[in-house]
């Protein structure tokens, strides 16, 4: 034995090249949420063949879209070890300002679409500034933003829904056979994947979430990146809010209440850790669809919406518990 072998004596150092069934098992472990989703779909199909009808699947896609878009934005935040509780309220505010600028101010429809996105990004940037430069904990800064955004939404709307412009309503409708919410979800997902895997910004997010100090000492502009991250989350929330408003052709003061928790759940079910440094766009997509499938399936099975809450809670606990177990065995 020579001294060069010392580093190979640790268990984790050994190269791991399993094959066949072992590799499938490994893949299943790493994609637990996806496997769960597939199994759930099979079970629902057996229980009620209506489940796999095209209409129903499109319905699920539309149901999933708003939470999925928000969750993609949330993925950035969670990868940096942050949290954004404000996305539901920011979504409502973005949609409300957009609708207000159309209905009351008479601005052109396409412009109001961008106003909605801008308001979302702005709200996110403010959260980001108070977190990065004001040193507020993300939980507190975004909790405050949630209250402020919801309050402003109520102030602007005076408590009643406002009609949206045609451009925004288009977001909730279909182009031919293609439902625009699903298209928006796919585009948001691709954007999220691209940013996270290919851009300096995305890779920096993983570094910051994994070890903020190491990222800073490697010359990454941590504060600027954090502001961008929350602005992106706000932008995605603004888009989600307008898809939601578009489906109803009006922005409601209570739109999106509680959606931030669904978005967080989707990200976490998708395999991200709240302690940062991990998370993938595909996982988040699976998480958001899983939530929608559960709701849809339980509806088809005539389970009361009260019980749906219970089931979704259990699924979140199960998914994260499974993930903790996976990480433990991987060590």
């Amino acid at each position, binding site marked *: *034995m*020579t*001294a*060069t*072998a*010392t*580093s*190979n*004596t*640790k*268990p*984790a*150092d*050994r*190269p791991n090249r399993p094959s066949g069934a072992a590799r499938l098992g490994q893949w299943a472990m790493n994609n637990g949420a996806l496997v769960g989703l597939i199994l759930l779909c099979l079970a629902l199909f057996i229980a009620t063949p209506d489940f796999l009808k095209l209409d129903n699947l499109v319905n699920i896609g539309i149901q999933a879209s708003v939470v999925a878009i928000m969750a993609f934005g949330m993925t950035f935040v969670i990868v940096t070890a942050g949290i954004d509780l404000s996305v539901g309220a920011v979504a409502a505010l973005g949609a409300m300002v957009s609708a207000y600028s159309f209905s009351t101010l008479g601005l052109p429809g396409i412009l109001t679409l961008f106003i909605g996105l801008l308001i979302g990004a702005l709200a996110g940037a403010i959260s980001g500034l108070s977190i990065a430069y004001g040193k507020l904990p993300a939980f507190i800064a975004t909790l405050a933003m949630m209250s402020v955004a919801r309050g402003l939404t109520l102030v602007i709307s005076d408590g009643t829904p406002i009609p949206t412009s045609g451009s925004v309503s288009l977001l909730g409708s279909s182009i031919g056979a293609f439902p625009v919410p699903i298209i928006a979800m796919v585009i948001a997902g691709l954007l999220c994947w691209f940013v996270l895997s*290919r*851009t*300096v*910004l995305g*890779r*920096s997010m*993983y*570094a910051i979430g*994994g*070890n903020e*100090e*190491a*990222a*800073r*000492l*490697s*010359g*990454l*502009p941590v504060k600027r990146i954090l502001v961008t991250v929350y602005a992106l989350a706000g932008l995605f929330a603004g888009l989600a809010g307008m898809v939601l408003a578009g489906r109803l052709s009006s922005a409601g003061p209570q739109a999106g209440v509680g959606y931030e928790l669904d978005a967080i759940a989707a990200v976490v079910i998708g395999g991200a850790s709240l302690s940062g*440094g*991990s998370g993938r766009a595909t996982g988040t997509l699976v998480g958001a669809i899983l939530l929608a499938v559960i709701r849809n399936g339980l509806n088809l099975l005539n389970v009361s919406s009260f019980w749906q809450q219970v089931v979704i809670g259990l699924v979140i606990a199960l998914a994260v518990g499974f993930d903790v177990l996976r990480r433990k065995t991987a060590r």
Partner: protein
Amino acid sequence: MPDQRTPLLTLKSVSKSFGPVKVIDDVTVDVRAGEVEVLLGENGAGKSTLIKMMSGIYQPDTGRILVDGQPVHLPDVKAAEAHGIATIHQELNLVPQLSVAENITLGRTPQRFGVVDKPRMNAVAREALERIGLDVPLAKPVGELGVARQQLVEIAKALSQDARLLILDEPTAALTGREIDALFEVVDDLKRRGVGMVFISHHLDEIPRIGDSISVLRDGQFVAQVPANTSQDNLIALMVGRDIDDQFPRKRPEEQGEPLLEVQGLSSGEAFEDVNFSVHAGEVLGIAGLVGAGRTEVLRAIFGVDPYDSGSVTLQGKALPPHDVGRSIAEGLGLVPEDRKSQGLVLDASVGDNAGLATLRSTSKFGLVDRSGQRSRAQVVTDQLAVRMAGLDQPIRDLSGGNQQKVVFARWVMADAKVLLLDEPTRGVDVGAKVEIYELINEITSLGGAVVMVSSELPEVLGMSDRVLVMSNGRVAGVLDADDATEDSVMALAVSEVTSAVTASEPSTKSAGTPS
């Protein structure tokens, strides 16, 4: 000297495998009452696996554990504690917010009808502290104590649970010289009371002061049991399985090069004042001083991590703006921080991602990562630095300390840094990898780079530096040529600015009032 007494604890021919890898292979170790058994070996030699078996965290696959000569089974930590075996881990198991007394009695807090019985809690804690002669206020939150005293609180806690065998896992790693003296006095006292101890340390010079015998491990196998006064060279040879010709293979440059880094009048609040020095191409400037002398703070200020009040930093003739890490890196500065795990590495990320962290932005185009370029450069540099890994995609968490540190160096080689600021570059790195890091420093300077090295290990400072700058209490106390510098002359400068007021404000224990 043959000892007829039954050992307190014996691991008899134990083996342990993780998957196909045997990490401990047929090792036998005895720990006797009133003696300190030193476990020595490089990182990955199996020391931590061994002590985890002693403390019930791991169970041996084969072999037996004997306590007082009787075979026992230690399924968990509680079982080991029931036999009087306690471990003082490197990462202390204390709750910083709770008081000293609460920590000592944690898990068995005296209570009456569910209410904490404070008088009894304090009595238990006071007795525990008295046993090791530690004088700290019982009500003080543990987090407000220094590391050294926290460690002693933890030892007191173990003793109050009737521990007969203490496992000390690198207890001196975070301590200053005087704190180590204090700790060793406690250890000596415990020996006299018949407590057996297992001691792990990377500091070979500590071993004869404290140990009775040494069990040397290499690659999970038992190599030899030798007396504690075995020479350091022999110990190193036993550990690495070959002779290391030279612990400090510094090749000094023939002549002085151009000044690369110039620091003038740098001051920052209480941390340091009027620091001046320059480092030339091909040179290693060592910075010595006591912990708290402001060495790390100076490095961080130069690198732009922290702002400073006045002064200037010039790199290759160009003034560096304060508080701008990005610019410092762009101009050719690199920092290997003090604490690899909390400041140097993204532990969950891969080797490749960690190596490429400083060049992520500079090599990007239109905000997109240069994935293939980053990867191939990381491959080249990690090969060049002989990082032992399964591949660039391996999580860096799985590498040994020395290899992790080499990846931090690789980051700066990739970034083409001209001047490297090193803060305790070989902390937690085993002997073999230390020499490799020294060779790396040689290579950097031979290519015309310069190195500023802060280190608390005097032999390292003296062995690797061309000049030694000594800081004391935030000021430059003096600069010595390597040829003139001795441990004594460096230490004399290091304490020169330390007033009695400072020493009086941090006495470590009652029994250690006088510095040696």
